């Protein structure tokens, strides 16, 4: 199976567009929610641990909604790298697919190394 360059561009473009629009929409929802829910305790501090995020989202915590928006935004370029790697792979350009995966590994290693 091969992938024409135009299809690859469309796929990468869609990831970037939808990733940035969706995460900004979630962030906007969180901001409006925060302003309309004065009874929720003020939380101006670092992001909450990931294991708490799901529970806080289910509880309707606006700070968790904003954190979800930020995480979606941070994941967008990573998803773009994966899409580019798959596109290059399908187009038979293995060298570029490999370089994309090296870039992805560097980012993940940087996070693990410091974390």
């Amino acid at each position, binding site marked *: 199976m091969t992938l024409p360059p135009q299809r690859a561009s469309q796929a990468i473009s869609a990831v970037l567009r939808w990733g*940035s629009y969706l995460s900004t929409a979630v962030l906007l929802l969180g901001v409006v929610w925060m302003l309309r829910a004065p009874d929720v305790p003020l939380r101006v501090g670092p992001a909450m641990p990931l294991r708490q995020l799901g529970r806080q989202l289910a509880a309707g915590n606006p700070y968790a909604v904003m*954190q979800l928006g930020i995480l979606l*935004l941070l994941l*967008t370029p990573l998803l773009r790298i994966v899409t580019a790697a798959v596109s290059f792979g399908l187009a038979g350009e293995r060298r570029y697919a490999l370089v994309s995966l090296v870039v992805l590994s*560097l980012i993940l290693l940087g996070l693990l190394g410091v974390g």
Partner: protein
Amino acid sequence: MPLAYVLALVVLGLLAGSFGALLGLGGGVIIVPALTLLFDMPIQIAVGTSLVCVIATSSAAAAVYVQRQLADTRLGVVLELGPVLGAITGAVAVTWLSQVTLQIIFAVFLFTAALLLWRRPTPADLPGGAVPDYQVRNYPLGMGISYLAGGVSGMLGIGGGPIKVPLMYLAMGVPIKVAAATSNFMIGVTATASAFLYYHRGSVVPALTAPVVVGVFLGALLGSRWLRRVESRWVQGLLLLLLLYLAVQMLRDALPLIGAKL
């Protein structure tokens, strides 16, 4: 959180985003000093916030460039190695520096950015029509300088476009339009590499970052619509004055602290 404070953050984002789109900048040069000086935030939190904004604007802009096949994705993917390594280095190195040192480095960067801005073309100046054929050259030089650009990005929370675009155009033989598009394609990945580290160490505060990102994103949408209607030289002159003012204020803010230390 008080409504006025949240609205002020959104307005800051709107200004930075629209200026950024008009001049082909990510907006970090305005966001970081404004958050530090006007909102009294520690510079690391300002940098973390700015990096998230850079991801939002560059991703939306790159989506358009990639769809129009203006961004050279092969060049972008290869050249990305340099700034990603640089961004991780910068985001780690920043923890060794004090708030005052960082403010001084940022002020020096703002002076340099003002000088570069004076000479550089804006998106409205980019030539129209078809892109000429080209052969990319000088990959090692490109990788080296973009490593440094990534380091500056990870340390100061800026996208690094003003370094990468002239590099690709002048040293690597890439047409200016393709260089601008490819730079945007790479910036989101560079900013993510360091933003994850800022997020991990608690320098991304959702309640502060979210309003700024929303403002920047809307501002960038508006700015790109005004692109053909606004005289870009005036905007460029206005931003130049703003950058010089912010640089002086950053220094004024930092210098008494040095005195206190001595």
